[in-house]
């Protein structure tokens, strides 16, 4: 408990887009409850704070830390370790922190390829082919920028995580619900869920919340959404040949995308107990292909031009393989 008696709250933004932060603000007036019940001690996007201030805090002095973003460089890693050490409850907040998300797609490439894209790309003017140097000697001494790691890791691959809150970003109503829960716990009106639990989401998958009609499935052709003249507003997208991640994706979002005729892309991650999101989707989709002939099957699969990208868009770093071979073989140099 702190001086003003309020429990301390922290939020940090590692390798991610910042959408999670916006999502938190999207809870509107609920944010006032946060302010009313918590003392925000560290939230770079919302208030000024220095790492050294955090380092100075006593261990476990922060009650709740919402950590969004993956671990891509030394700085992310340092803060992850630091906040773990200072916090009682560390929540992997949002898809990046829980399973890697879009930044995690970089795990398909090795550092050179990434640098190539970033520093030498068509849109980049870099005649001298300058690449970052982590230590740079100047008369005043050595300049240092955080080292870039060969692959992105999820928060729980770096430190011990108490809860997971999926979503890219987590739906605001779910955030609000979680905050309510924490407040209830503070007032002794509720119990904390068991360690390692996924909070702010459902136990089933998106289809559970999806209003579309569905039947026995048997797929003869995969099409991409722009290849369909007219999407049946009533019918399950997968049954229309559109690769929809709904069946494998944890519920909680309210099936918003399929609701408006856009296929689910899986930002809420795997359902309870699933250890490899992509594999589940892969096996499900393949199982309902309506052919027993290898060539015909391959022909049908032509309709999924980028399986790895479609199945692991959000979960690559948290998949069984975690990264494509180039990422680690490159690390070997």
């Amino acid at each position, binding site marked *: 408990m702190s001086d003003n008696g309020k429990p301390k709250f922290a939020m940090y933004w590692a390798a991610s887009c910042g959408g999670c932060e916006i999502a938190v603000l999207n809870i509107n007036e609920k944010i006032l409850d946060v302010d009313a019940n918590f003392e925000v001690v560290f939230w770079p996007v919302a208030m000024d704070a220095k790492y050294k201030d955090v380092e100075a805090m006593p*261990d476990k002095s922060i009650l709740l830390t919402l950590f969004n973003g993956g671990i891509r460089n030394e700085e992310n*890693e340092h803060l992850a*370790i*630091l906040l*773990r*050490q200072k916090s009682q409850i560390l929540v992997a907040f949002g898809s990046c922190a829980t399973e890697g998300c879009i930044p995690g797609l970089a795990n*398909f490439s090795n550092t050179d390829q990434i640098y190539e894209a970033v520093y030498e790309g068509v849109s980049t003017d870099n005649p001298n082919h300058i690449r970052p140097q982590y230590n740079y000697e100047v008369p005043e001494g050595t300049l240092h920028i955080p080292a870039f790691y060969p692959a992105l*890791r999820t928060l729980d*691959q*770096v*430190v*011990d995580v108490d809860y997971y809150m999926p979503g890219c970003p987590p739906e605001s109503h779910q955030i609000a619900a979680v905050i309510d829960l924490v407040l209830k716990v503070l007032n002794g009106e509720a119990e904390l869920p068991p360690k390692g639990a996924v909070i702010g989401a459902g136990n089933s998958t998106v289809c559970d919340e999806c209003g579309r009609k569905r039947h026995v499935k048997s797929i003869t052709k995969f099409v991409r959404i722009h290849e369909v003249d007219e999407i049946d507003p009533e019918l399950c997208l997968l049954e229309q040949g559109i690769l929809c991640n709904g069946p494998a994706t944890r519920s909680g979002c309210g099936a918003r995308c399929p609701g408006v005729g856009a296929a689910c892309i899986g930002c809420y991650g795997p359902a309870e107990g699933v*250890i*490899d999101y*992509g*594999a*589940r989707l*892969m*096996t499900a*989709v*393949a*199982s309902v*292909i309506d*052919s*027993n002939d*290898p060539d015909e*099957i*391959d022909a049908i*699969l032509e309709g*999924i031009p*980028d*399986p*790895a*990208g479609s*199945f692991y868009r959000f979960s690559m770093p948290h*998949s*069984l*393989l*975690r*990264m*494509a*071979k*180039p990422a*680690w*073989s490159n690390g070997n140099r």
Partner: protein
Amino acid sequence: MSEQFEPVIIGFTCNWCSYRAADMAGTARIKYPPNIRLVRLMCSGRLDPTFVLKALSEGADGVLITGCHPGECHYLEQNYKALRRYRLLLKTIAQMGIEPERVKLVWASAAEGVQLARAITTFVEEIRALGPLRWPLRLAEMDIKETAAVEEVVA
């Protein structure tokens, strides 16, 4: 220690055909290299791509999937489901920089002990030629390093 690379291979077998074929290979004392370790499933249709990825992520250099010949499935048609998943799995792992040749599907009936042994021998050689995959194991090690770091900080 011999110089040549000894691949480690996980084989998935169907309880009704290929597992019995393995039994038969044994009973007939047909020899094949010890590089393969078999896992029994009730049917190749039970094969979840997760199992294959698990094997690879745990360091296997190759995975052999076996099932009843098309049309001879003990459960009538489930081996076809295995086939469908297999085709998609190959496509996917190729994108992850894994040679698709490392995951192979062969059919073997309960009577085909010889054929199974031959298939295993061939596959071991194919993987030997491809060289080690040994999917990081090492990735796990990275984590150990980090959690160690946590201890430091705490200390």
